């Protein structure tokens, strides 16, 4: 039987407020960590802060301090360049020592721009090469069925990632093999590296494509914790699901920092100390933006 997150049960009376607070904390941590190498993917991390916070603090079946617990839900970070948003969560769950964060990207540290399962407990699969994540999650679910486990694999994909052919190979095979415990979440922030996704290579009609591949399709505001929590909890509690599900989460790249929301160049960049103070002020006082 599927149980909701062990950690969610430990959590505060108001899970939505708690998750919103964690999403703001993730953004602050992203800024703190990127200041170490002085280059990073702020905007890509900000667009998925609520998605990550909802999964880890409200949905996934996890045990604090036990990153290799075999019944845990799995998380695949398809848009791995936003891993800087995941590392603070892994420390918060005692999967990695918090001190490791302070040496982010420094020579020999396990934490790089992309998540590495060989170095970082809590990273269920390495990523960095766009398009592999859904296949890895599918493989985990297929093996789980063989081994009598019922965990769910969540794959957070970028919308630019939809360009990759392998995504659609995985989509086709998951539906064919009736792998219902595979849940894809698409961070539909609208931008890839060279500009608007649909200018570079359009992916629309996205929902119709996934439906045509045999998936259940849900669409939410990816910054609304109540919406995310409702659909992801519903998916996690299905009994014997036979169809994989995709959640298209409509988001804003750079969400939370207005000058990043309006400038796609912030896909990659560096905040000098003055701009860092401005960004933190917006995150701490969202009513300013």
């Amino acid at each position: 039987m599927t149980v909701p997150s062990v950690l969610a049960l430990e959590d505060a009376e108001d899970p939505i407020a708690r998750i919103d607070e964690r999403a703001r904390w993730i953004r602050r941590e992203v800024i703190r960590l990127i200041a170490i190498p002085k280059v990073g993917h702020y905007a890509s991390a900000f667009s998925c802060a609520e998605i990550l916070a909802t999964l880890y603090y409200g949905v996934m079946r996890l045990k604090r301090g036990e990153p290799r617990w075999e019944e845990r839900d799995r998380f695949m970070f398809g848009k791995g360049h936003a891993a800087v948003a995941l590392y603070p969560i892994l420390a918060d769950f005692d999967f990695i020592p918090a001190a490791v964060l302070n040496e982010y990207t420094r020579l020999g540290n396990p934490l790089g721009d992309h998540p590495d399962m060989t170095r970082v407990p809590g990273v269920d699969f390495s990523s960095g090469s766009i398009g592999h994540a859904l296949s890895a999650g599918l493989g985990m679910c297929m093996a789980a069925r063989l081994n009598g486990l019922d965990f769910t694999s969540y794959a957070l994909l970028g919308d630019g990632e939809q360009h990759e052919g392998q995504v659609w190979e995985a989509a086709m095979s998951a539906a064919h093999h009736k792998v219902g415990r595979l849940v894809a979440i698409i961070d539909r922030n609208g931008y890839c590296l060279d500009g608007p996704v649909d200018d570079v290579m359009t992916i629309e009609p996205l929902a119709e494509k996934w439906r045509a591949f045999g998936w259940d399709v849900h669409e939410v505001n990816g910054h609304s914790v109540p919406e995310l929590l409702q659909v992801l909890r519903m998916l996690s509690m299905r009994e014997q699901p036979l169809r994989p599900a995709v959640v298209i989460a409509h988001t804003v790249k750079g969400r939370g920092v207005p000058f990043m929301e309006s400038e796609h160049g912030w896909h990659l960049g560096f905040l000098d100390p003055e701009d860092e103070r401005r960004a933190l002020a917006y995150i701490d006082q969202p009513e300013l933006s």
Partner: protein
Amino acid sequence: MAGTRAKPKQGSWTLLDLLDQAPGLAVLSSTLSELVDEGAPVVALTGDLKYSNGLVRFADRHPDRFWNMGIAEQNMVTVAAGMASTGVMPFVAGFASFLALLCCEQIRTDIAYTKLPVRLIGHHAGITLGFYGTSHHATEDLAIMRSLAGLTVVAPTDAPMLSAALRASVRHEQPIYMRIGRGREPDVYAEGDLEQFAFGKAIWHHRGADANIIATGSMVFPALRAIEALESTGLDVGLLDMHTIKPLDEDAVLEAAQLAPTIITVEEHNVIGGLGGAVAEALSSRGTAVRLRRHGIEDAFILIGAPNALYAHYRLNADGIAAVVREEVER
């Protein structure tokens, strides 16, 4: 010899400022644009990386000759093969890791086997993407590309040589894989140094009596600094710039073997299968007795770290190369 290096950017910056930090990549766009202006049938393709490789400038000048193919590299490579079959000359630019590794089969079957004049530009090769990690490193591309029949494999040393190689490619019938760095490598050559540039013709910087380095691509500049440092300690170490890995300039390798008892190959690549492998094959097939040290990445995946920290760690900077040479000479 020049020696310019990009200045680090001050203050906040974004993707849109990257080109100013990578003058070595600006040459890609400017040379291709000039070739179009001169009447060459050049077109360019990239997959959501026009800011990373600077092709945004080519796209601005020749929008009808530029295609952004999205993050779908395998399709892009075979599309280029199709274009080439009609008489145009496609230049396909992408991170070396994805171009050479993800698209290996498309390159072999659709470009090398078909002998179509596609020019593959694998940028940010080696470990230049630093803490992006193994997915973004290419320390296998030379070995893989070198094993594809009929493919010319070149690692231009700096921006002037990239420009010379792009120009030479227009007169070259075979398909080409060109491996370059992140565009911040210091220039080794000045304008005018490369008038005789030809694929397969290595360039001697100095012929050494104690040992000779054969270096390629990004390693030529630090190797040059290393032989200068070694000279001040009384060691006469030569340097051969082996910019073309295939076809290899075997005559130059044999000359190096005759000049001194030790050869050290230096590459930003696994020691297996790349420059060191090619040189070893050449020496052994000619029955040449010489000590060969293949210096590079020792069949390992790379630590997390910024590029300069990694170069120091793996002894791929001037000090590291000098130390490796000294180890070999003093054995």
